[in-house]
Every structure is written in C-alpha cells, then in structure tokens.
C-alpha cells in the first residue's frame, strides 16, 4: 500500500493530468446531449448579463440592418394577413376548428444576445427564458426562415442550437412536391447546407425552395429553410447531393421567434405509444 502511495506521489502531476482530462471528456460528452442544464453555458445568469451588456453596445452598429429586415417581414405579414382575411370572409372557409388546433403555434419574440457562426457547433443565446414560457426543445425561427431549436433555458435567458451545428437535423420538403429529406449543415460555410435523403426518382431543380415538413413537431409546416443552388446525382447513388443557400443570414441575426407548439406533447406521446 505504501508503495502505491509513493508511486502516486511521484507521478502526482501525471495522475492529476489524467483525472482532469477525464473530467473534461465527461463534460464534453454530457454537453453533446440534445438538451442540458442551463448552468454551465451562456444561459447562466452571470454569463448572460455580461454578454447582454456587451451586446447592447455592438447592437447600435447593426440597427439599420435589423430595422430593414423587420420592416420587410412586417410588409410580408401584412400581405398574408390581408389574404387570409379575404379567405375567411367566405362562409365556406369558416369550418368549425377547435381553438387549440387553430392556435396550435404561438410565437414569442426574443432578441439575440450572442451568436457564433464560425465554429462547427454554433449556438445562439437569446434574452427570453423559462419565465417567458421558453422550454428546451422548442423551435426558433427568424424573419426569413428556420434558425434552430432551444437547448437549455434559465429563468431569463436561453441557448438554442443553431441550424449551423453539425448535429442538427431539420426535416424538410421540396417546394410543393412530396420529396422529403433532412437539412444538415456541412460545418463550413455559414450560408450553405446540404439536403440529404431525397430519393433519385424525385424531381428537384435549382431554384426550388425548401420548407420545413409536417414530419416534425417543433416547426410548423411551410417555414422556409433555403433555396436549392446545386443538384447533382451520381450514377449509382440512391439519393441526390443537394446544396442549398440558407434563407436566414446567421451573420446578422438580431431578432428571432421561439415557437411553442401546444399540441407537441399530445403528438409525441401518441407517436411513442404507437411505436412501442
């Protein structure tokens, strides 16, 4: 026993090194899970308030871009509202829809206080948290399209996994067709993502818009993800190689909406019952 202690003492630096590295590896593995506690990341109150303060300063530099993107969105929404009002004025459109289905999705606006785009796993910190009804797993969209999903939330802040994260997959559909696939970022250019698993019998062309599909319970169907810029199909491949230009400009993201799906729990529990 004495010899063992002597040995450990002689190599104490090496032993501590191995122990500390194991702790770090454990932390990294824990941190890679889809949802996690909000203490050891930038949703942590101290970290978030430091970030928010520094963000308030740099925000002034981007006010113009933020304003333009918000007013464009406003105009688009106005137009959609008018169209829907016209449709609703027809009696045949007023079918009896239960309120919770009609208002299945509610949107909570939030300001981006921290955002990275150059890592291979990028995260977005926003200034709304549990108090505002934000929970891990909710979807996040921007004025132009899909942004990410909430990973952890503290009382007043939350961290979302950006679409620019190599483990993030979003179920997608091509334009008006029924070609379903999933969008995944390739880890390099913050403007370009891949669309995988579109089978070769489907018709996909450059310029097609990619939307979120109905196959997920986080995003409403029909939220834009991006536009196809490159389609290729090698002779013996089962699936297309498709590249898309993302709808959201992550480098100038300033406001986002967090989506709450009232029927998510119902849908998920039904699906899990059916699977088991």
């Amino acid at each position, binding site marked *: 026993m004495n010899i063992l202690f002597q040995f450990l003492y002689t190599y104490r630096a090496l032993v501590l090194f191995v122990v500390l590295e194991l702790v770090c590896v454990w932390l990294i593995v*824990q941190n890679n899970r889809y949802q996690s506690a909000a203490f050891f990341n930038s949703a942590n109150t101290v970290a978030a308030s430091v970030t928010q303060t520094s963000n308030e300063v740099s925000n002034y530099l981007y006010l113009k871009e933020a304003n333009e993107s918000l007013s464009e969105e406003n105009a688009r929404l106005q137009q959609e509202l008018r169209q829907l009002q016209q449709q609703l004025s027809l009696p045949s459109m007023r079918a009896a829809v239960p309120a919770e289905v009609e208002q299945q999705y509610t949107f909570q606006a939030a300001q981006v206080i921290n955002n990275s785009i150059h890592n291979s*796993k990028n995260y977005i910190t926003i200034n709304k948290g549990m108090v505002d009804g934000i929970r891990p797993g909710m979807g996040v969209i921007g004025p132009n399209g899909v942004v990410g999903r909430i990973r952890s939330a503290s009382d007043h802040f939350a961290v979302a996994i950006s679409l620019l994260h190599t483990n993030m997959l979003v179920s997608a559909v091509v334009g008006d067709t029924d070609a379903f696939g999933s969008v995944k970022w390739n880890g390099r250019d*913050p403007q370009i993502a891949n669309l995988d698993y579109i089978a070769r019998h489907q018709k996909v062309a450059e310029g097609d818009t990619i939307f979120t599909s109905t196959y997920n319970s986080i995003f409403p169907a029909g939220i834009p993800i991006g536009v196809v810029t490159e389609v290729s199909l090698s002779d013996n491949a089962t699936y297309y190689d498709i590249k898309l230009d993302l709808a959201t400009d992550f480098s100038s993201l300033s406001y986002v909406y967090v989506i709450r799906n009232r029927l998510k729990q119902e849908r998920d529990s039904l699906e899990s019952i059916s699977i088991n």
Partner: protein
Amino acid sequence: MPLVAQVFYFIIYLILQVVLVQKVVLFDVAFCFLYLGFLLMLPFEAGAIRLMLMGLLMGLCVDIFYNSLGIHAAASVFIMYLRPHAVSIIAPRGGYETWMTPKLKVMGFEWFSIYSLLLIFLHHLLLFFIEAGGFGNFFYTLLKVLASTAFTFMVIVIIQYLFYSARRSI
C-alpha cells in the same frame, strides 16, 4: 507574483476574451484565444499541479461563454501539463535564474516565440479537432488551427510589448 495580482489578471484576460475577442474572427478561420496569455505568463516556479488547476479554471470559465463545456478546459489542462517540460527543453544556456519570468521583455523574443508558438499550436490543435468532433473536414480544421495560432500569437506579442514591463512583478 502576489495572489491579488493573479486574480486581477485572470479577470482582465477573461473579460477581454469574452467581451472583445470572441467576436473577432479574421477571414472566417482565424480565431483569437487571448486568455492563453494569462496561462503562459504564470511564473516559472509554479508546479505542474498548480498550472493544470489554473488551466482548468480558466478553460471552464471560457467554455461557459462559448457554450463548449469542457473543450477549452481540456486543451488548457493539456498545455499546462506540458508547460514545465517545454520550459525545460528550451532552457537558455546556463538555465533559468530565480528572477526570471516567462515574459517577452525578460526572456527575449526568440525564446518567447518558441515557447508561446509551441504551446499555442498544441492548444489550438486539440481545441479545434475536439470541437470538430473528429477528422472530417481535416484540412479545413488544420487551416483554422494554423491561422488561429498565428493570430493568437500576434495579439499576445502585441500585449507583451504594450503592457508588460521587464520588472520582476508581472
């Protein structure tokens, strides 16, 4: 170096890192991890154990802001473990004197650049490959490592010239 000064420098480097340098990325590939300046400046007489604990603490604090829990800590502990070995390999002729500190103005540019480039490179190598989660995009990740090593080194050298004097206290 008195404890108060060390705590002070720790906080200064951490705040500079997360408030200022975190947002600066040159050409999409060159990152600056200025906080290494603090770890490189710890005195020679600090043993491997103290160095590693400082590395862990600094790494974890940076990780919280980068949402990358454990990655900066792992890389920092790694170079802090290697630091005493690196220091003894590149010892100047006649060894180290008791009044010496690992500062540019004390040790000279040649010694300082070998010392810091070596450790910064190893730190970034580990950091970016763990962050990428493997060797996919190998050359792109390597490019990030090299560009960031150059960037971090430059900023640390500039800070050495501007803010550190050749006096004994840090």
